[in-house]
């Protein structure tokens, strides 16, 4: 006799007034058919037990429906770099963007492309670097080609962002021809695509970009950045002529991002060659505006605003502007950990807001963010939740 039947019979025994004469008892059916009757009868005949039974409420079974939404828009996929067959010289190419839902809403669709990490390289060691960053590159600071190699081979960067800081009119003001040497050397030293960063001076950057775009025609590089005070018509034309991608940098302002996007595409920049950068404030220094502008740009793009349909770039490097990242303060703990964590957190906030391409500095921060991007972008997850004894956390001894 099964245990259920035994229990039931015991119960029947207690509920002495239960009427059984109208039924033929088939042991198998008993449990199913008569339980409600038993309970009813008991409620009448055994008041003390009734209190206990009233509490035995049953679990109300529900089903959770994933809250899927349809989006009228999607984000174009931007290819960075071109192989020999495609008219460039790169051994690898990178694709970013292509989203059809908000970031990491896996219940809607897993990400099409993994967000990528560029490590920053400077053409000349004229900008002051934070201590923890400097120590990671101290042997290569003088040579951008070696620096780029180390960033890729040792630190696992997906691509390089080469900042031509020497072209800054207020620093060395090197002419485009001169700056081109570093670009050429880096392109020879590594076979992955690169981002070419200017000095932030709109007139000078345009000259530099025009010269370098022609020199690297067909490589499908990224130039960073076009700003609202630049001759947008000229920069869009040169990028489309030589087949490069362009980052449009808006100052934490969604309307400025729209304006840049509209003007650049009207001037001939193909939609799948545009990347938007709404400016990344450091954690603690305006990051929430970057976060909200990025979220708005991505959601507006998905909801159909064509001017905002572009992959997003996030300069997490700016995290080092925060003194919490680099300053020596004993009660804040060791800056060797604090700094990279500050940069990683800055990038992660961008990642969750929808950024597709990161410019970063510290190898450890880059490693953390790349690892996360890999996990979050997997088409299919390997780990089974059932196999993790989550509940054990209460009793862990640490």
């Amino acid at each position, binding site marked *: 006799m099964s245990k259920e039947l035994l229990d039931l019979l015991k119960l029947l025994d207690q509920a002495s007034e239960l009427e059984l004469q109208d039924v033929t008892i088939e042991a198998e059916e008993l449990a199913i058919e008569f339980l409600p009757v038993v309970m009813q009868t008991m409620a009448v005949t055994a008041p003390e037990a009734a209190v206990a039974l009233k509490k035995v409420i049953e679990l109300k079974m529900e089903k959770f*429906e994933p809250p899927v939404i349809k989006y009228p828009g999607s984000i174009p996929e931007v290819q960075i770099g071109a192989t020999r067959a495609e008219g460039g010289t790169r051994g690898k190419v990178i694709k970013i963007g292509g989203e059809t839902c908000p970031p990491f809403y*896996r219940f809607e669709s897993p990400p099409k492309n993994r967000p990528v990490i560029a490590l920053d390289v400077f053409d000349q060691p004229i900008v002051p670097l934070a201590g923890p960053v400097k120590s990671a590159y101290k042997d290569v600071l003088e040579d951008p080609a070696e620096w780029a190699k180390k960033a890729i081979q040792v630190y696992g960067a997906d691509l390089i962002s080469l900042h031509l800081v020497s072209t800054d009119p207020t620093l060395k003001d090197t002419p485009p021809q001169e700056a081109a040497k570093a670009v050429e050397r880096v392109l020879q030293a590594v076979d992955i695509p690169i981002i070419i960063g200017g000095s932030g001076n709109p007139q000078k950057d345009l000259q530099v970009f025009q010269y370098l775009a022609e020199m690297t025609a067909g490589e499908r590089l990224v130039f960073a950045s076009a700003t609202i005070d630049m001759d947008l018509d000229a920069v869009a034309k040169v990028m489309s002529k030589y087949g490069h991608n362009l980052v449009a940098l808006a100052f934490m302002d969604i309307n400025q991002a729209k304006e840049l996007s509209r003007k650049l595409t009207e001037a001939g920049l193909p939609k799948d060659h545009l990347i938007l950068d709404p400016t990344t404030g450091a954690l603690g220094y305006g990051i929430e505006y970057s976060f*909200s502008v990025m979220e708005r740009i991505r959601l507006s793009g998905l909801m159909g605003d064509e001017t905002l349909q572009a992959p997003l770039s996030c300069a997490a490097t700016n995290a080092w502007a925060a003194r919490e990242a680099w300053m020596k303060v004993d009660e804040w703990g060791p800056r060797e950990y604090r700094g990279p*964590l500050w940069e990683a957190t800055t990038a992660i906030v961008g990642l969750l807001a929808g950024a597709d391409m990161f410019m970063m500095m510290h190898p450890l921060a880059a490693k953390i963010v790349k690892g*996360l991007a890999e996990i979050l972008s997997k088409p299919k*997850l390997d780990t089974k939740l059932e196999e993790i004894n989550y509940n054990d956390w209460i009793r862990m001894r640490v």
Partner: protein
Amino acid sequence: MPKILRPLEVYGVLPQTNCGECGESTCMAFAAKVADGVADITQCKPLFKDPKYKSKLQKALEVTRPPVKPVTIGTPPCQVIIGGKRVMYRHELTYHNPTAIAVDVIDDMDADSLIKRAKAIESYSFERIGQQLKLNLIALRCVSDSPEKFAKAADMLSKNVSLPLILCSYNPDVIEEALTVVGDKRPLIYAATKDNWKEMLDLASKYKCPIAISSPGNLDMLKSLASTFVGTGMEDIVLDPGTFVRGDSLAETINIFTMLRRAAIEKGDKLVGFPLMAVPAVVWMDPEGDEVEKKMKESYVASIMMTRYADLLIMHSFDPWVLMPLLVWRQNIYTDPRVPPSVKPGVYEIGKPTDVSPVFATGNFALTYFLVRGDIENAKIDAYLVVADSEGLSVESSVAGRRLTAEKFAEAIKSSGLDQKLKKKVLIIPGRAARLSGELEELLPGWKILVGPRDSSAIPEFVEKVLKKEMELT
């Protein structure tokens, strides 16, 4: 799409007598504040007291209930409110009720260490932009399996610290024993599961305490338990869908939290409309990784979960460098997204400036201010920073847009009182406002006007190479 509360909707359910008891002069003004989340409907006393508003009251409670119910842990003055969320995205409406952060202690620590750790958690504080960033709760974990030990630890905690408690055990006997000593302080009971929910629910209703429902990785069960609890009238619920961090499972954790919050807010699924909790402390269960790696991971998992809708976090690490990014991100994300990020125009002192210190000027865009301030600090000099009203815009765009003019700079200097106070009058204006320097010289006789770098990060260099010489000459 989220249903944002409109002032008119609230107005409709108010008495509309403009009696002023709520502190606002009109019902409409009060309605606007309620819609904004800065006032609570309970502040309209007549609505609750006067029986003639009975039907209005019922509507009012319905209309103003946020899609994510607010839940209170602890008792005044040491209570924490979590949840109460109306939107998914910060740009839609200011987030309310900052994510509460708990740090753990265990019940078999010796009394001294227990009290020491609890006091350290309570007194941890980090000042930033005029705010004290603090931790909010203590999570007491039962590792001893002994109801007596657990209750004793709970008792000691409640006698020595005032932070609200989270009582963590799946064993109802353990929880009950602790509730007999601290049950009147409204601790959060963690947790009801598919196996113990009847007993736990009884305890929560007996002691009138909020309760967490834990159903790791199983959302059907999570919702079923919530539905069952709601059916009995228990609505002080916190949902724990499980925090998975091992391997690639973090992707699924983020997915689950996001689904739950969207279902509550955008699909109106009331049965998951409760605060969510995450336990970044689980990184310590992973056998791999050294201590520093674990601490870093715990910190960024916490930041991720806070961004993705956790209203309550339980942490184990307690180092300042682990908590700082999390606390600062919390401070950032809970600010009003509609107000331009600005600081008050005026004079700010950096270090200990005297009557021979230089004066830097900039606009009042908050970020500009903080960067410039940081850069002057980096230059390690004592100085004044005069912040002119650039209408919350950056220096460049406000100068270009004629919002920040020479007159405004001059006006800021004059109203600062520095004109009389200083013996040496050296003013450094931002490089991006260079074109205003001629005009400023005319407006500020007796001042030496210097054009600083375009980017404030070059201020230290500027100080070394230019300013120090100029200060000697003046």
